[in-house]
């Protein structure tokens, strides 16, 4: 399967979801649905064209592009996403500055920092600067939570 085929079928699947589920259930009235519907039709047509292109290039024995979405490196890189979700979730509960301090340490370890001194300095300095400039000088309140 080449990129064209994957992209085309992914888009087509999304179009089907939109057409058969999202639009009938989450838009009120045919007039309001007209514009999203016409966009979906356009999208479906484009995805068909991409699919045709994909099939054609496969028949012609076109270059089998290497699938780069899932490999060891990308799985490791995408590990940031769940950490990030936890981080955002905890901001409101623990308090922005504290949780940012903790997660800077986590992120830095994740990204390959190994020297304790630089990790400590950065994780303490960054929130401190943010606090001084945005929190104090410009008096913008970040969520306080139970700690700070």
């Amino acid at each position: 399967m080449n990129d064209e085929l994957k992209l085309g079928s992914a888009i087509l699947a999304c179009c089907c979801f939109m057409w058969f589920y999202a639009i009938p259930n989450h838009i009120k009235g045919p007039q309001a649905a007209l514009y999203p519907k016409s966009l979906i039709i356009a999208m479906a047509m484009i995805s068909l064209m991409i699919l045709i292109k994909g099939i054609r290039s496969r028949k012609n024995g076109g270059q089998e592009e290497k699938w780069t979405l899932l490999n060891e490196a990308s799985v490791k890189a995408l590990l940031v996403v769940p950490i990030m979700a936890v981080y955002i979730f905890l901001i409101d509960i623990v308090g922005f500055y504290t949780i940012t301090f903790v997660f800077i340490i986590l992120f830095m370890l994740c990204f390959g920092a190994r020297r304790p001194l630089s990790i400590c300095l950065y994780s303490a300095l960054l929130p401190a600067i943010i606090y001084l400039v945005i929190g104090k000088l410009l008096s913008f309140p970040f969520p306080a939570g139970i700690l700070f």
Partner: protein
Amino acid sequence: MLEQLLSGLNMVLVPENLLWAGLGVAFGMILGSIPGLTDNMGIVLMLPFTYYLGPIAGIALLMGLTKGGNFGGSIPAILFNIPGTPQAMVTCIDGHPLTKQGKSGKALKQALFSSVMADACSDLILIFLAAPVAMIALKIGPPEYTSIIIFSLIVISVAASDKPLRGLVAVVLGLLLGTVGTDPEFGTTRLIFHVIDLADGFHIMPMVIGMLAFSEVLLQLEQQIMNRLRKRFSEIQAEVFKNGDVINPDYHRLSWKEFRGTLPTIFRSTGIGAAIGIIPGIGTTVGSYLSYIMAKQYSKHPEKFGNGALEGIAAAEAGNNAVNGPNLIPLVTLGIPGNLAAALILGGFMIKGLVPGPTFMQTNGDMLYALFIILLLSNFFTLLIGYFYIKRVRKVTSIPKFYLFTGIIVFSVIGSYVSYASLFDVYVMLVFGILGYLLTKFKINLPTIIVAFFLGPMLESKFRQSLSISGDDATVFLTKPISLTFLILTIAAVFFLLKRKKKLMTD
């Protein structure tokens, strides 16, 4: 007029105002150059401040912020391929390749000079042509808007991507993302899946930060891990990011000859940007995109575009900054704000009991001249501060990546949170980061999605307004001369661009 000009000068040229303008420029430039933070965020944060300052100093601070931030956004675009502000997206295309060649200094200078020059020209247009241009702007009603947006979208989608089909995917995807929120005509919610935070659609800032900053962190991180797996990491590091300081000092210089070569591009792009700026709401990103496309068409060396052409940087920067001057025209002539900065200036005036509007020139002409002088002054400050700033900031490329990535992540969270004080927006940023990562893998152009997302709601509402006004008669787009012109232009441009592309392919 002269009297008003002099009294305006008198109002502006006190040390306090100069100080605030300078501080605004410096602060804006720093914010703009940090991916995740934007000049708009600076404006939101600084707003309470401006109310204490008195109208002139407050406006000086705001204008300084926008001008400084506008240029600041180009710095990370050139250095890290991560635009600091959405309008710097196009600068990445040619700016970052130059950094890879070790010529970041040259790229930054080209960006600085082009943006300051275009900005100054556009301010002059604002000052001298405000009244006639405002008349043109009023002529642009819903049908005209519709055609102009269609023109921008189609031309950008066809020209921006090597594969026109993917360009179209990007455009339609952007438009679809723009349908989330509230129906512009009936006021009912749609496609929000019972999440009331989405009632106004996705906010542009978290989306842009996610797609441009966070997704780029993911991609670069993956690259870094991959290199480490192949045990070539140290070599890559040395090759890409260290040579900036060693090889050839000439690489960071921008010779007069090189700059002169880009002058025609700068002037053409200023014209395009200013024309876009007359129409409120179309925005800086479209200005820089269209300028870039035109520059590529006119260039003697189109093959250099994308590999570090100075003309590419010049076009992107000039086209983006030239939008700003004319964008203020509806504000000073009618009191209608054309962008966020203008809306805030309007608010700043009103809090002091001054109401910009049709007779503002007669009743408060000195204030208006003061505003103009501030514009030119902040421009000068941008040049001055920018010149020293880029000399220092260039060295940042050699710091270890974990500082950079961690910083960008934290700043992305802050940048998405601040505008609406909403954690929901931070989640939105995260989701768009992942989406941007996936789409980049499929070689779909993210800036095109953002432009389409930005213009989509406007396209829809203007399209439907046109039909409401005409009583569902679609010929309204063909009977209005300005509208018809743009529709014909669209067809001509697509034909021309595709032909050219085919020719390049067969060559």
